[in-house]
């Protein structure tokens, strides 16, 4: 089934859907411009704006549901952005509204949580300003009705991410991580930019409607566009080979990691691929590459996750891995889209819940992140333990919890598409079972390995309530979306639907294998980290462990492939500029000056030599005249 037609829209809540973007933007502006005057109530304003955006989102959603299924793609025109090139408008359709609800919903919860988490930070107002800025940009990203608008949001969330990773910029590591995130993302953006060049050159338009409608036509360089879009997606979603920034990005405050680097922003790549599905469907090669990238990343992320002792980095590895699943699904075409987005949403819930839980733990443990210094926290932090546990169960695919539905769907869809991909995804699921269990057991169970001055305690209500609400989503979200193909049906006007929806086969071979592998993984983790002693210092481990700990040598690779040669190139260029180009200029000047210095010696000061030069000159002139005259 093809995506539905897009209809212009005005009036109603959809007509003012731009408020969703404007409100948090206004919040950010007030908080940044207002300065210290807003310190006292700034965080409330931030929360309020985010919640207001959520409310508008819900109302929009309701209004959209009120329309006939084929009528659910609405474009709200805003203004002429670049005359003759880009008209800015918002596309409200099932795909974008799903994101809107996720972003504003989870976003609002994280806003609320941050009130507590950041309560002692002198920069709390600024933090909320950045969060609001992020929400606005992310909403623009998903709501824009054209590639340029999407790109503005795309870079806007990049900026917010930069600001928030570097929120504690006085730490050089944070500042470096922020910079790295931005620059690596820019590599991806380069791909996105070139994709847009191709789109414009091919279609003379950037608007989703006409462009995607014609994407499947002949003579469209769909493969090139698809691969370039994928490059953009890899940057934003930390897929191989542009994954390296995400682990470093954990330098940011934990709510940021939850919201931006787990639940929403990093999934923008998935959004992009799904939104541009028409190009990928027209380009099997590009699709294949997407699935390969997805699988490679899901394995790489999982491997990294198994070896990290830093709780946030372990979770970040997991995020990479889970997004790998989504990308894999998105690469499968219409059959995977619903699962990709559904997994994205449920992942948003359970990963946010776990990150916030990790934040709660860190809050309790004086910002200690090393899981080897945790252990046995279950008894002192009941709520955190419970909500984290539910999230943990959801992500490993514990039957009937959210992750079970969505991830299993992806595995089955992949299996149908290509058994190799499918089995690799299954292995990934097993790894997930291991590394998530490791995190859970190391943190909450086993012996207490706390530092001496640690006095863990449960977090305040403002932090625990969001946890509780998120874990509700972790538990029930999957079932709600998947059972009866509810989400697929809802999404189909926006992204199309497969001819034959995937049936639900809980007892298929892959399904069973997955469960078994997850159980083995979890069991192994229990024996290794739950029951037995966890050494306070990480053991040296095998080559494989080091491999995983060093992020699969991604940074080392970047360093030796790009940074060092880049530094040399820079030095060479500077040298060349100073000595070569400028040297030529200055050399010319010096040459003229030098020749002046030497030539002036001919002016010896002796009248007789002057006379000689005159006589010589006269002879030359006469000779020349004779020569010319006799020609």
């Amino acid at each position, binding site marked *: 089934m093809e995506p539905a037609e897009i209809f212009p829209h005005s009036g109603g809540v959809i007509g003012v859907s731009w408020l969703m973007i404007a409100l948090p933007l206004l919040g950010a502006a007030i908080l940044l411009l207002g300065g210290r005057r807003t310190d006292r109530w700034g965080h409330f304003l931030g929360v309020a704006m985010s919640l207001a955006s959520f409310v508008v989102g819900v109302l929009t959603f309701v209004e959209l549901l009120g329309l006939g299924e084929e009528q659910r793609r609405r474009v709200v*025109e805003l203004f002429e*952005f*670049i005359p003759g090139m880009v*008209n800015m408008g918002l596309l409200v359709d099932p795909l974008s509204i799903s994101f809107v609800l996720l972003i504003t919903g989870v976003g609002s919860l994280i806003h609320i949580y941050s009130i507590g988490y950041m309560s002692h930070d002198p920069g709390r107002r600024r933090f909320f300003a950045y969060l609001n800025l992020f929400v606005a940009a992310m909403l623009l990203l998903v709501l824009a009705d054209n590639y340029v608008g999407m790109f503005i949001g795309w870079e806007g969330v990049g900026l917010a991410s930069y600001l928030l990773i570097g929120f504690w910029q*006085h730490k050089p590591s944070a500042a470096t991580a922020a910079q790295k995130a931005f620059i690596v993302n820019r590599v991806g953006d380069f791909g996105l*930019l070139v994709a847009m*060049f191709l789109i414009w050159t091919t279609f003379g*338009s950037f608007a989703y409607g006409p462009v995607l409608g014609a994407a499947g036509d002949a*003579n469209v360089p769909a493969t090139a566009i698809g691969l370039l879009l994928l490059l953009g997606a890899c940057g934003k979603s930390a897929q191989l080979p542009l994954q390296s920034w995400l682990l470093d990005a954990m330098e940011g405050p934990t709510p940021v990691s939850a919201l931006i680097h787990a639940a929403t922003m990093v999934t923008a790549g998935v959004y992009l691929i799904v939104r541009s599905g028409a190009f990928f469907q027209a380009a099997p090669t590009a699709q294949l590459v997407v699935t390969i990238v997805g699988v490679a990343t899901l394995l790489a992320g999982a491997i990294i996750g198994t070896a990290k002792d830093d709780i946030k980095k372990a979770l970040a590895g997991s995020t990479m891995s889970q997004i790998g699943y989504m990308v894999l699904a998105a690469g499968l075409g219409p059959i995977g889209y619903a699962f990709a987005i559904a997994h994205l949403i449920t992942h948003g819930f359970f990963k946010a819940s776990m990150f916030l839980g990790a934040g709660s733990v860190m809050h309790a443990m004086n910002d200690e992140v090393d899981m080897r210094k945790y252990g046995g926290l279950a008894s002192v932090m009941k709520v955190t333990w419970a909500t984290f546990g539910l999230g943990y169960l959801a992500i490993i695919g514990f039957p009937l919890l959210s992750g079970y539905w969505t991830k299993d769907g992806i595995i089955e869809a992949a299996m149908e598409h290509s058994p190799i991909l499918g089995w690799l995804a299954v292995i990934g699921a097993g790894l997930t079972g291991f590394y998530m269990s490791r995190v859970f057991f190391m943190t909450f169970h086993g012996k207490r390995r706390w530092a001496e001055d640690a006095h863990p305690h449960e977090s305040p209500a403002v932090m625990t309530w969001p946890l509780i609400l998120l874990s509700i989503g972790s538990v029930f979200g999957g079932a709600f979306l998947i059972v009866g193909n509810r989400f697929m049906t809802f999404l189909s006007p926006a992204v199309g639907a497969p001819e034959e929806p995937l049936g639900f086969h809980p007892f298929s071979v892959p399904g069973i294998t997955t469960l078994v592998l997850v159980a083995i993984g979890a069991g192994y983790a229990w024996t290794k980290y739950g029951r037995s002693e966890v050494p306070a210092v990480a053991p040296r481990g095998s080559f494989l462990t080091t491999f995983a700990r060093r992020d699969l040598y991604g940074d080392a690779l970047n360093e030796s492939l790009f940074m060092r040669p880049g530094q040399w190139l820079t030095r060479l260029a500077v040298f060349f500029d100073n000595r070569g180009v400028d040297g030529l200029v200055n050399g010319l000047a010096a040459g003229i000056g030098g020749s002046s210095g030497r030539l002036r010696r001919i002016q010896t000061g002796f009248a007789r030599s002057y006379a000689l030069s005159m006589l010589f000159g006269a002879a030359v002139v006469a000779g020349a005249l004779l020569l010319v005259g006799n020609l």
Partner: protein
Amino acid sequence: MPWLSILIAVPVLGAVAVALLPKGSDKAAKQLALGVSLVVLVLTLVMAVQFAPGNGRWAFQETYDWIPSFGVHYAVAVDGIALVLIALSAVLVPIVILASWHDADGTGADNPPKRSVKTYFSLLLVLEAMMIGVFAATDIFLFYVFFEAMLIPMYFMIGSYGGAQRSYAAVKFLLYSLFGGLLMLVAVIALYSIAGKSTFLFPELIGAIQDPTTQKWLFAGFFIAFAIKAPLWPFHTWLPDAAAQAPAGAAVLLVGVLDKVGTYGMLRFCLELFPDASKFFIPLVVVLSVIGIVYGAIVAIGQTDMKRLIAYTSISHFGFIALGVFAMTANSAAGATLYMVNHGFSTGALFLIAGFLIYRRGSSYIADYGGVRNVAPLLAGTFLIAGLSGLSLPGLSSFVSEFMVLVGTFSSPVENFGFEIPAIIGATGVVLAAIYILWMYKRVATGPTAESVSGMKDLNGREKLVIVPLIALIIGLGFYPKPLLDVINPAVGTTLANVSVPAFAPAHPVADQKGAGQ
């Protein structure tokens, strides 16, 4: 009303008035200069409001005989391109005056000697008159006169008020530019005599030169002058020296406006006077531009001095502008024109904020800073915003222009040159831009507070007044460039029509329900 003549005359009279103030009236000189520049700004805005793009090519036209013996007219008029650049000058000058309030006082942290305040502000106003004049001139001779005469006030501003290496930088700047200008003079003379029209009026000279070989030679004369002015690689080495040594305010006008005369000249004169030669030289210019984009960015990464770094970023940006001009599509050329304006604002802001930093710390070396964000958050924040505009972050003004340039270039059908590759290489500039800007910001503003900046004060009221309008423009034009583009587009269209290049047509046009596209 002779708007343009008034715009030129007011700052000149203001400059004379400032220069004639009695000794010791420094404060009055500053206030008077600011007042005059604000009057110019208001007049410019009033004029701009009356500008209607549809009414023929030229607006506010004035033509008088100046030197009939040479066929020279005092002829001024504006089209959309000139108008936005005049507006850029008129906006930047009051900002620069306000920002340069203490530049000549000798109060900076590096204890520069006290210099004549009157002269400084008087020169600034003279420069403003010439900047307006050079964009308004529609007589090629008059353009040349302003083109060269502009050098002198800037030369004195760099040489008298600049940093330690000021006289080297000033001389290099002047001689390099003068050299280019003189080559252009030869071309101007030859154009006059070969065209045989006994006039320098630009509109009458369009299409006057038909012979392709002649076109090429004359093109070369004009182009080298403009390439030095802009500056394009490899004629760029004067700029880092000049911009780094100039006081921040002068650097803003140098890079923000003066250098635009080069790219403006390419668009206005090279393209229209020598259309065939322009097309012939596309490969050369495009290669130079692309080298400039990448090379400028790479060298910028390696700089240790803030102002030099910003200067190199500008070299990269000028590559974009030249690329846009010579891709000769409506989008690329309009984008290039818009780029000229946006670059003025964003680089202007960067230079000014760097100037504030240097005024406080007394050094322009990046290594002498660290953790400025901790002690002066506003200063660092505005620095970041200006920097982000420099790296063309979407939502800030430079993005629109850079995007238009690159998209326009990529899609250019002109001469079947294959503009895709240059555009793609140009797009790598976005990655490099992120590196040079963010790395500079990181070293200057983040990390633990360096001892030397620990007492640094945040922006004061005057400085806020300087920065706020710039940032407002950067953000405003980032989201709503339409007012400028509506003025620029018709003018660019006329220019391209005179070059007679094929318009861009999408390979697979789609019916856009919202009328985008052609």
